[in-house]
Structure formats: structure tokens, C-alpha cells
């Protein structure tokens, strides 16, 4: 049963699975989640390679330049997905748009998770007055009318900071409340375990107890939250861009491309202009949600212990 010293540590290391390795195996067995991961991976690769790919796929790989002679062309051999009302290639814009939509979604998610985890774990660990103060502040942020604030802040900050980062910052600073609450409640529950007391008794500083002991044990919740947030923040970006308050007009994003659909003429007669970004958004969100579900199953605390 127990391997003796002769077999060496390397072999033992393989035999013992860390809780993370167990979760990874479980995730790999989930077909839907794996297909979704593959799809998301492809979308990310295509978006990242946009500058390299676009010249091969389209005669006009420029995303911004208006081309009066090539307006409203339906998909054909030259323009695989047609051109839009300003004569720009839809496929090129779709590839470049993916970069922006995914970038905004990922950066805003990172920001939200960072602030939410910081506030939530500190509030949960220290409790008492610190907890009350931080949570009242969280409630305050949660009660901001999101849309109004995004529009106002975007207008004020426009021109001072690069448009894209304004949007990421604004979305990030207004959306961390939910994560903070979830992390806090998880930390509160996890804190009751004796290993936290043990960590204090062996001389860990509060920061170390939070980072090394509490966070790894609430990480599963944070990861699942992050995936779901990623999806919803991509939608937030698209929604804002569609309304004209998101990514600046000159930068292509899936939401910006979708904005053409508010003209009845385009919506009814020129589906090649809005169908690709709509599909891209839908499928990406769907796959992210499947991945989130898969992670939730794989990281179920019962399977981790």
C-alpha cells in the first residue's frame, strides 16, 4: 500500500492528486464544457490573429476606412461576409471586433474579481466594524444605477482617457459589489474551520492567512463567478456599444457592429451586417456559460476534500 523510499519521491508525486488536479480531471470528462472550451479557444485565437488573418480573407483589411464605392455588398467571393453601410469588410470587422469585446470582457472581469475578492475577503476575515463599513460601502456601490452612471462617467471622462479603458474602468468599478458579497459569505463560512485557527497559531500574519489559506479554499467559487461575469460583461459591453455609450464608434466591437441593426432597413434586408456579430456574441456567451457550469461541477467542494 505505502510505497517505500526506494521508489523515490517522483513516483509518489504522480500518485497523489492535488485537489486542483482532481477538479481538472472531472472537468475534462464533461463533454459540453470541453467543446465550449475548444470553441472559446478558437474564437480567442482568431481574434488575436486578426491583423495577420484579415489581409488573406478580405481585399480591404482596414477596419475604419470608409469606402463609398463598396457600400452594402452582400456576401460574395471577395467579401465572405459582405460589407457594411460604410463599405467596410464585415469579416475583418468581426475579427477585430472580437479582440475588443473579449478584451473589454476579460479586463473588466479581472478588475471586478480583484476588487470584489479584496473587499470581500477582508470584510469576511476581520468581521466586526471593518466588515460593517466595507459592506455598507458595497451596498452603496450596488445601488448605483449602472446604466446612468456608465453614460455619465463615459461622457465626463471621454477624451481625457482612452475611450476603451474608460469603459473597462467604469464597468469594473460599478460591478464588484456582487462578487464582494459572495466572497465575504464564503470566507465567513470557511473561517470557522479549525485550519484557519491553526494558521494563526503557527504565526501567519492576517494577510497570509487570507491569501494562503482562505482564498485557495474559496477559489472555486471565485472562478465560477469569474466565468459567469465574463459572459455578462461581454453582454454589458455589447449592450452599451449598441446604445452608443460603450466602445467609441471608430473602434469595431461586436456591440458596435450590432448597432446597425437598429435601422429597420438593415434589420430586414441586410442580415449579413448584424447576423455575424449577433451569432458571435450568442455562441461565445453560451460557451462561456457551459464552461462555467462545468467548472461549478468540477470544483464542487464535496469532490475536493
Amino acid at each position: 500500500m505505502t510505497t517505500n523510499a526506494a521508489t523515490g519521491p517522483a513516483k509518489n508525486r504522480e500518485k497523489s492528486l492535488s485537489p486542483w488536479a482532481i477538479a481538472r480531471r472531472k472537468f475534462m470528462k464533461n463533454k459540453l464544457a470541453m467543446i465550449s472550451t475548444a470553441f472559446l479557444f478558437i474564437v480567442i485565437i482568431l481574434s488575436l490573429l486578426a491583423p495577420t488573418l484579415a489581409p488573406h480573407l478580405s481585399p480591404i483589411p482596414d477596419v475604419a476606412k470608409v469606402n463609398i464605392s463598396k457600400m452594402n455588398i452582400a456576401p460574395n467571393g471577395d467579401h465572405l461576409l459582405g460589407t457594411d453601410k460604410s463599405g467596410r469588410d464585415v469579416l475583418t470587422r468581426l475579427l477585430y471586433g472580437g479582440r475588443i469585446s473579449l478584451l473589454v470582457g476579460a479586463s473588466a472581469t479581472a478588475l471586478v474579481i480583484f476588487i470584489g475578492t479584496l473587499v470581500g475577503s477582508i470584510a469576511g476575515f476581520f468581521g466586526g466594524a471593518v466588515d460593517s463599513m466595507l459592506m455598507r460601502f458595497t451596498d452603496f456601490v450596488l445601488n448605483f444605477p449602472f446604466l446612468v452612471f456608465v453614460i455619465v462617467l463615459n461622457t465626463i471622462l471621454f477624451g481625457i482617457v482612452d475611450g476603451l479603458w474608460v469603459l473597462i474602468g467604469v464597468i469594473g468599478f460599478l460591478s464588484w459589489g456582487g462578487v464582494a458579497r459572495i466572497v465575504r459569505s464564503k470566507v465567513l463560512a470557511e473561517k470557522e474551520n479549525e485550519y484557519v485557527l491553526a494558521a494563526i497559531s503557527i504565526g501567519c500574519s492576517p494577510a497570509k492567512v487570507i491569501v494562503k489559506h482562505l482564498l485557495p479554499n474559496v477559489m472555486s467559487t471565485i472562478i465560477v463567478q469569474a466565468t459567469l461575469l465574463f459572459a455578462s460583461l461581454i453582454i454589458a459591453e455589447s449592450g452599451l456599444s449598441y446604445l452608443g455609450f460603450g466602445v467609441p464608434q471608430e473602434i469595431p466591437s461586436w456591440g458596435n457592429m450590432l448597432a446597425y441593426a437598429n435601422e429597420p432597413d438593415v434589420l430586414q434586408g441586410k442580415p449579413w451586417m448584424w447576423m455575424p456579430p449577433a451569432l458571435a456574441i450568442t455562441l461565445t456567451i453560451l460557451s462561456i456559460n457551459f464552461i462555467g457550469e462545468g467548472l461549478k461541477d468540477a470544483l464542487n467542494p464535496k469532490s475536493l476534500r
Partner: protein
Amino acid sequence: MTTKELTEQNSKKKERENLLEVKNLKTYYPIHGGFFKHVVGNVKAVDDVSFTIKKGETMGLVGESGCGKSTTGRTLLRLIKPTGGQIIFDGEDITNISGSRLRKARQDFQMVFQDPYASLNPMQMVGDIIAEPILNFERRNKKELEQYVKSLLTRVGLPESAYYKYAHEFSGGQRQRIGIARALALNPKLIIADEPVSALDVSVQSQVLNLLKDLQEEFDLTYLFIAHDLSVVKHMSDTIGVMYLGNLVEVASNKDLYSEPLHPYTQALISAIPEPDPKLRKERIVLQGDVPSPANPPTGCPFHTRCPMAQEICSQEKPPLKEVRPGHHVACVLY
């Protein structure tokens, strides 16, 4: 037996000094209530407890659930802030130190926890769990540290290969051994064992207890051994303190306490120990009623509501813990 006698002789030769002195320790948990969540009362988990532990000795602390044994242990290690009193450890007053000074002081007193399933971080490798206390205080060569941790693992009766495993791969008894190795890692002077075997099978209990005894001699440890099982405490301790409702009601040497319990509560406890010989059936003292709430303890002696020998004065005056015979302290008006 002979080794025990030898150590007893040794201990008589050199007068042992106090390692831990506890004076009038109080730990209250505030009860918040009312509209503004202000403090409306206190749960007196530990109420005026005093005792001393000499170097190299084991003091047992017994009492029923909720009597404040664990809170006492945790307060002594400064895991809970004491409300009042004084804790003097190895000549230094640690009652009110905090921050990095407290963290530094923790090197010398460690704890073995009650629940081996909750006291080990499920995300850490066993090697890291045991190495962590050392890394909190000094930088060590990685190879050297690994060697040291492995030697600790072997010492507590686990294979070296345990180093690379995770806590979920071990049984309760093995996990408790990991917890003991973690407590030993810093080479502490005092280990507080908070019901270390109450979550284990009886067959495993004795193994862990014997391990603790062996380690005590080898590493020159002092124990505060908290338990609710009188036979376990008898096996382990030199002196025994009996707690009731946050108060220490009797402190005596192992032999005196079992042969001649003085406090009515101790007498009742000892009469409840099962006797293996059926012919030796003895009179059991059955206490009436329940333990009063520590949020609203009775006036006078905390035990007078259930005491078979209660007198009128018991409800008015709280008897202090006084030495009625050499080394035998009791808090009761009868003596």
C-alpha cells in the same frame, strides 16, 4: 513503570519552575441585542480561572461540554482575546501583546486541534502544512527543510511519502499525527492539546495518546491536555483541573483527584467512570437538572443549583479556590 518512577525521581531532584501561570483569566463573549445592537450581556465562557503548569508536566483540564475548557485553551494561546486576568508564559506577560510581537511569541506555544478533518488545509500538501510554521519564522534551505519535515513525519509514525500527499488521503488518526507534527515543527515549549483524541476511534486514541507521551519525553514538552474523557486525562496528566461553568472548581495531582475527590462535582464525575469489574459496582452520584446558562450564571457557587450538599451560604458567596491540602485546591465551602 520503572521509567515512570525514574522520571518522578528526576523531577523531585530539581525543583521545576513554572512555565505557564494563569491568573484570574476571564473570557467573556458579548451578547449583542436591542435596536442598536449594543452589548446587553456577556457569556462568561471563562470566569476567573487561575492555575500554573510546571515545566515538563502535563496538566489535564476536564469538564463537560460548554464548560469553557476549549475557550480557556484558545485564550491561553491568544487565539481569543482575554477579557481580563493575566497569562504569564515563561516569565513573559503575553496577555496584551499583539501584532508581530505576538506572532513571534507563538513559536513557543503550539496547539493540537480537536477535529483532524477541519484542522488541516485541504488545499495544502502535507509537507507544506508541516513546513509552514518554520517558514513563518526563518528562511531555510529547501533540501534541509524537506529533510527535517520528513524526519518529523517519521517521528509521528507516518511514512516519508506522506510529504507529497494531501490531507484528504489520510484517516482521522493519521491526520491527527500530521497535526501533531505541525505543532512540533517549531520545537515549542508548550503544546495545548484541545481534545486531540475525542474525534478518533478508541483503538486509534491510545496510539495517539502514547505518541504524545513519547514525544513529551523526547522533546521535553509541557502539555495542557483538554478532554472530557476522565480516563484519557488520567492516563496523560500529572495534575488535573476540573472545570464547571467557566470556573475551575478543583485542582489536584492525578493520584489525589481520583483517590480522594473533594468537590461534590468532581465526586459526581468520578463516580460516572465505568467500572470494568461488574462485582465492584459502586454508588453513582446522579446530578439533577442541567448546567445553567453561562450567559446568566447563578449567584454564589456556580454549582449550588445542582449540588447534593448545597447549603444556604452557597447561593450567596462564591467560594475561592483554596489549597486545603498540599497541592490540592478546591473551591467549595465544605473545606
